[in-house]
Each structure stands twice: as structure tokens, then as C-alpha cells.
């Protein structure tokens, strides 16, 4: 066999070693700074996304500790009221826009192409662009905060507080443009995932054989595509009100302050499910591995995810029950909020049945799932409570709500995510995380989380409002607040231990091997960490648990060229091969495009003319990006 690869040579012509060498030649990211900036490998970008999101989690966590320090005692003066306002705003904004949504999408950026058996994500240059945009959005928010220009309006930026009349300076504009950065990024990833799942699945992976994490990410991506434009429109209208003098939210000139709340929560409530559904997918993918049996109720679980995805668009007004809307209209949203408990219950019972009929192995990822069950069900039940108009009217803007949404978000998303990190860490790095430390992490986080947030229900029922920077001694909230603050320190210690374990294991963990858990899905059919081309020969799928069938020996598809980046396009329903398509090579243009877009968006905080003049470099960068390479794009 000649070492030189001829034009149009196919993988079927090569043995394993020459095939590996040929594929590395075309798929490997170039070394050095240029390679790092130009990479379009979904695994490299996915790892960056995950690491960056966890950095923002740590930053947001530090802010939470500062808040708890301030609230530990009545009439405390640790923080000024202004700094406290900035801190709770940047904490919420970081956790929602810079951690929770991006980290779930990041896991998908890394895992979905591997789980569907393809060589790269669809639109890989867009993927690179999305990461740079996300990074700049995060730097913008935190850079502003560090120079005392952090937004101070809450993560929801209600008008008129955020409008030109009450929100002087540029703090609100920074929040609004940070939204633009992160939403562009999220929308880009969502589009990539939809196309990857619908058109790049391995041959034979029909819709009823897709891994449930992939189903979850498909539904999540559609929610993102439909929900996020609402907040982008809202934040753009807010900037226009502040910068150009429009009156979208000014009632005196025919605008409407409630329009902001409608637009924000039309995005904001689906956002909860944008964070939660990937966790559902993670649990559904992790659980079978640790109970040694296929998931119980594949179809009901898919049905539940699709139902939740659609129903999530009919719940937004339950954030607005105290705004004076007609009670009957509000009751429609109570109805939807109650109805969404049905598919959520289906999910829980399918998982319980899977455990019931299986043989559980109590490893760290499974422990996080058990922690999820208790915590999320608690959060779900208080969610049904605050979906009731009379009860919500009493509890609105109290610490009861703070407790509720932390139970939903941390219990429903962060615990499964940490379980997912322990589960997929061997695939990311080729090394195992420590089982002993992992059990400590799971135990510490579960106990400390409940000690921190359960008393907040009681504080809310005692009347403590959200977002107050202090309270008086005679309110009687001091004891519980001190307990909450001390528990928060233990919670932080749990996260610190997790970070320590991740960093240590990445260098010194036990080597993992390809499939250390004996799992069933395709990402475990390749090396750990996977090579740049993911699969030397594309797998062919004949069941929903391909590695548990046929003694784990996968049939493979052949015929792809090895002299260029090539992947297989398949049909939407049955995943029948349709075409061979080239996949883009590394390029610096997504970075230039992101920088040009950054200049435009940052400039528009100061002057509307930045949109006009900033469009020139953006256009140049996009022309460079899309300049034809003279290659034949697709062969059927």
C-alpha cells in the first residue's frame, strides 16, 4: 500500500493502520496557536465550552457566597446596596446565560456527533463562531462587573427599572448586549444540533433508535430556536428605548411595560426546560448503564420530552400572576402548569421502573441521579404549588420562590450534569475520575444543597422577600439565614472538591479504555478520547442499544473518501444513506467574524451608528468565511 493517498481513495481500500494515518492527515487540527484559533473540531470546541461554562459557574458561585455572607446576619454592612444589586444580577445572569444553557449545549456539541455516529457536527465553522461569541459575552458581563459597571436590574431586567428613566448609565445596555452575544451563540449551536441529528445519523439509526440524550437535545434545540428570538427582540427593543429614544416600553407614549414581561417570560419559562430537558436526556442515557438493562419506556420518554417541549411555551404567564391580568386568562396558564406535571411524571415513573427491573450499581453517576430524584421532585411539587394563582400571589417575590427554582435548576439540571461529567469524563479525557472522591462530592453536594435551600422555603413563608440586601433584627429571620449561609459554605466546599477531582483526574486519573462502564451507545464505540475523525469506519445501527447487541461488534459502512473531510448524510426518518458530503476545514474566519460582530455590538452600546459602520467589517469577515474554496461540495 502506498503511503501517499490518491485522489478519490475510499476507506474500503485501506486496512486499519493506513486508514487511521490517512484520516488523521485530513481531520487533525493543526498544532500551535493558529490551529487552536482555527479549529472546527466539535470535540475541541465542546471541551472549551464545557470548561468555560464551569469557570462561569465558579464565578457565579463566589457571588452567591458573597450574598450569603451579607445575609448571614441582620443589618449587615458587608456589601453596599448597590454592590448587592450588581451581585445578585450578575449571579443570576451568569448562572442562566453563561453556565446553565451553554454547558448543556456544550455537552451536546461534544457528545451528539459521537452518539449519532458521525465525524463532525453540522456547520462546524458556525460552531467555532458560537464559542467565540459566547466567550466575549461572558467577558463583557464580568469585565463590566469588575469595573463597577455590572448590571443591577436582576437577571430579568424588568422595565421601567431597566428603562431610560430609572436605569441611568450603561449598566443595562451591557446586560442587553450580553444577551445578544449569548443568544446568538445558543441559536447557532441549536441549529447545528438539529441538522446533525436529523441529517447526519449513522445508517440504520432510525427515529426509534436515537439515544435519548440526542432526542432531548433535538427537542431542546427546537425550544431554543423558538424561544430565544423573543428575548433578543426584547433586549434589542430595550436598547432602542435607551439609545435611540423609541418607546416600546414607555406607557406615556403608547408603549407597554407588560410587553417586556411577556416577551421575556415567553423566553424565560421555556429556558427552564432548555436547561432541564438535556438533564432528562443525560439521566435516560446514564441510567441503563448502571442498572444493566435498557431504558423502560423509550416511546413514553420521547413522548414526554416532546410534550414538555411544546407545553413549555404555554406557561410563561405564571411568572406574571401578580401583574393584574384577567384571572381567567391566568387560569389557562395554571392549567398548562398542572398539565406539564403529567409528562414529567411519566419520565419519573419510566426511570423508577428502569431501576426497579434492573440491577443497580452504585457508582458516582448513579448517585447523582438518585440525588436528582429527591431534589427535582421537591422542586416540581413546589412548582405545582406556585402555579396556583392564590398561592403564588402570597409567595411571589419571596424566598419560597428562590428555594423552588434552585430545587428545580440545581436538582433538575446540575445534579444530572455532574453525574454526566463523571460518566463522560473518561470519554473526554481518556481517564477516570476518582470514585472515592466522587462519592464524597455527591454526598456533600446533596446534603449541603438541601441544608442551604430547604430553609429558604420557610423564610419565604415567614415573609422574607427576594433581592433584599439586608433585614432588620426584629423580623426573626436571622437564625435561619445564618444556618443557610453556613450550609452554603459546605456546598461551596463540595463544588471545590469536584473541581479538584476533575483537574487532578485529567492528568493523573486511572486510564479508562474505550468503554469503561460497559455502556450501550455509540460514543463508547470509539477510543477515549476519540480521534479527530471520531470513527475510522462509520457504524451501522440495528437497535437502540447497539453496543449491547451482537456481542458489541458493530457492522460498519464503507465508501467514504479519505483524501478530504467527508461524512455521510442520511434520511430524516430511517437514517438511510443519501449522500457523501464534505466537512469544512479549520479556518480563522469564524474568529474574525466574531471579533467584527463584537465591535458592532459593543459600539452600539455607545452609538447607534456603530450598527451602520460596524456592518462593514462584519460583511468583510463573512465574505472571507463563505468565499468558495473551489471544491465540489457534495456527491450523491
Amino acid at each position: 500500500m502506498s503511503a501517499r493517498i490518491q485522489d478519490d481513495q475510499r476507506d474500503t481500500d485501506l486496512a486499519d493502520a493506513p486508514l487511521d494515518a490517512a484520516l488523521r492527515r485530513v481531520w487533525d487540527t493543526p498544532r500551535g496557536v493558529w490551529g487552536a484559533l482555527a479549529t472546527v473540531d466539535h470535540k475541541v470546541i465542546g471541551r472549551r465550552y464545557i470548561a468555560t461554562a464551569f469557570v462561569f459557574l465558579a464565578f457565579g458561585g463566589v457571588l452567591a457566597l458573597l450574598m450569603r455572607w451579607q445575609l448571614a446576619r441582620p443589618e449587615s454592612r458587608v456589601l453596599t446596596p448597590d454592590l448587592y444589586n450588581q451581585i445578585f444580577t450578575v449571579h443570576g445572569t451568569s448562572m442562566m446565560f453563561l453556565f446553565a444553557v451553554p454547558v448543556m449545549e456544550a455537552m451536546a456539541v461534544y457528545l451528539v456527533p459521537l452518539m449519532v455516529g458521525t465525524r463532525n457536527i453540522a456547520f462546524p465553522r458556525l460552531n467555532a463562531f458560537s464559542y467565540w461569541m459566547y466567550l466575549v459575552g461572558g467577558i463583557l458581563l464580568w469585565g463590566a462587573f469588575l469595573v463597577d459597571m455590572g448590571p443591577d436590574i436582576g437577571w430579568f431586567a424588568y422595565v421601567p427599572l431597566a428603562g431610560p428613566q430609572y436605569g441611568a448609565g450603561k449598566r443595562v445596555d451591557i446586560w442587553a448586549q450580553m444577551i445578544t452575544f449569548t443568544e446568538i451563540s445558543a441559536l447557532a449551536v441549536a441549529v447545528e444540533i438539529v441538522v446533525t441529528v436529523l441529517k447526519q445519523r449513522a445508517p440504520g439509526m432510525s427515529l426509534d433508535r436515537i439515544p435519548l440524550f440526542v432526542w432531548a437535545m433535538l427537542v431542546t434545540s427546537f425550544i431554543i430556536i423558538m424561544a430565544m428570538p423573543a428575548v433578543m427582540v426584547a433586549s434589542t427593543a430595550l436598547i432602542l428605548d435607551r439609545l435611540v429614544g423609541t418607546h416600546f416600553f414607555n406607557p406615556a407614549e403608547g408603549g407597554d411595560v407588560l410587553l417586556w414581561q411577556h416577551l421575556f417570560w415567553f423566553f424565560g419559562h421555556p429556558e427552564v426546560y432548555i436547561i432541564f430537558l438535556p438533564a432528562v436526556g443525560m439521566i435516560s442515557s446514564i441510567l441503563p448503564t448502571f442498572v444493566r438493562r435498557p431504558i423502560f419506556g423509550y416511546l413514553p420518554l420521547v413522548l414526554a420530552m416532546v410534550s414538555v417541549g411544546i407545553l413549555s411555551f404555554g406557561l410563561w404567564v405564571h411568572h406574571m400572576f401578580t401583574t393584574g391580568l384577567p384571572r381567567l386568562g391566568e387560569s389557562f396558564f395554571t392549567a398548562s402548569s398542572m398539565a406539564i406535571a403529567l409528562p414529567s411524571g411519566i419520565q419519573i415513573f419510566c426511570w423508577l421502573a428502569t431501576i426497579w427491573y434492573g440491577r443497580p450499581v452504585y457508582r458516582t453517576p448513579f448517585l447523582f441521579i438518585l440525588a436528582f430524584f429527591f431534589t427535582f421532585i421537591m422542586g416540581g411539587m413546589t412548582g405545582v404549588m406556585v402555579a396556583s394563582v392564590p398561592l403564588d400571589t402570597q409567595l411571589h417575590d419571596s424566598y419560597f420562590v428562590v428555594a423552588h427554582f434552585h430545587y428545580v435548576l440545581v436538582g433538575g439540571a446540575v445534579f444530572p450534569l455532574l453525574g454526566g461529567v463523571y460518566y463522560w469524563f473518561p470519554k473526554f479525557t481518556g481517564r477516570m475520575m476518582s470514585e472515592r472522591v466522587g462519592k464524597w462530592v455527591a454526598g456533600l453536594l446533596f446534603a449541603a444543597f438541601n441544608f442551604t435551600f430547604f430553609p429558604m422555603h420557610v423564610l419565604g413563608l415567614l415573609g422574607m422577600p427576594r433581592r433584599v440586601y439586608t433585614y432588620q433584627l426584629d423580623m426573626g429571620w436571622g437564625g435561619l439565614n445564618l444556618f443557610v449561609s453556613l450550609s452554603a459554605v459546605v456546598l461551596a466546599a463540595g463544588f471545590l472538591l469536584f473541581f479538584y477531582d476533575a483537574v487532578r483526574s485529567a492528568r493523573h486519573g486511572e486510564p479508562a479504555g474505550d468503554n469503561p462502564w460497559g455502556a450501550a451507545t455509540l460514543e463508547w464505540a470509539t477510543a477515549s478520547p476519540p480521534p479527530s475523525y471520531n470513527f475510522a469506519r462509520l457504524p451501522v445501527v440495528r437497535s437502540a442499544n447497539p453496543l449491547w447487541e451482537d456481542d458489541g461488534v458493530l457492522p460498519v459502512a464503507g465508501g467514504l473518501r479519505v483524501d478530504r473531510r467527508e461524512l455521510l448524510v442520511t434520511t430524516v426518518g430511517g437514517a438511510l444513506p443519501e449522500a457523501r458530503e464534505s466537512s469544512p476545514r479549520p479556518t480563522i474566519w469564524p474568529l474574525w467574524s466574531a471579533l467584527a460582530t463584537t465591535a458592532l455590538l459593543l459600539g452600539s452600546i455607545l452609538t447607534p451608528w456603530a450598527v451602520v459602520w460596524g456592518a462593514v467589517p462584519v460583511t468583510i469577515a463573512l465574505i472571507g468565511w463563505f468565499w468558495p474554496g473551489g471544491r465540489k461540495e457534495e456527491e450523491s
Partner: protein
Amino acid sequence: MTAPRLWMGVCGLLAAPVLWIASVQLGQVLPYADCGHAWRGSFWLPCLAAILAVAGGWLAWRSAAGRRGAAGFVLRVGAGLAVVFTLALLLQGLAGWMLTGCER
């Protein structure tokens, strides 16, 4: 299975969610029309939508009968969606039955 039959199934799959979305939107408008009138659209329209959703679900279920693979899977999911959204619509109808539309 014939193409029209398959399309009937797909319509069934989509009917319940679309009807529910329409009902949610109407729920923001109808209270103003209902208040002070005997018409009670906030009760009748979700109930009518629920009946149509059941019909759509039945179509999807019938179309799925004997059908394996991806198409049968999607149609069965559609029939299940009809059940979930029928419940959601009936809960909305219940709200329309209990309230007059004048409450603020």
C-alpha cells in the same frame, strides 16, 4: 399504507399541539369577551378543541396500526401527544367553566 392515510396520521399528530397553542392564545383574549356575556367561549372553545384533539389522536393511532419503524414510532408519539394535550385543554375548559372572565 396509502399516502393520504399517512398524512391523516400526521395531521392527527399535529392537531392536538396546534389546537392547544390556539387555545392558549385565545385564553388571553376571550376573558374580555366573556365578561358580562352568557356566551362563555373560554369554556366551549377549549372543550371543542379537546374533542378535535381526541379525533386527531385517534387518526394517528389508527394510522400507526401495523406500522413499524420510524413512521409507526412517530405516529404513536402523536397519539400520545393527543392524550397529553387533551388533558391540558380540558383543564383550560375547566377554568372557563369555573370563572366568568370578569375576575381581576
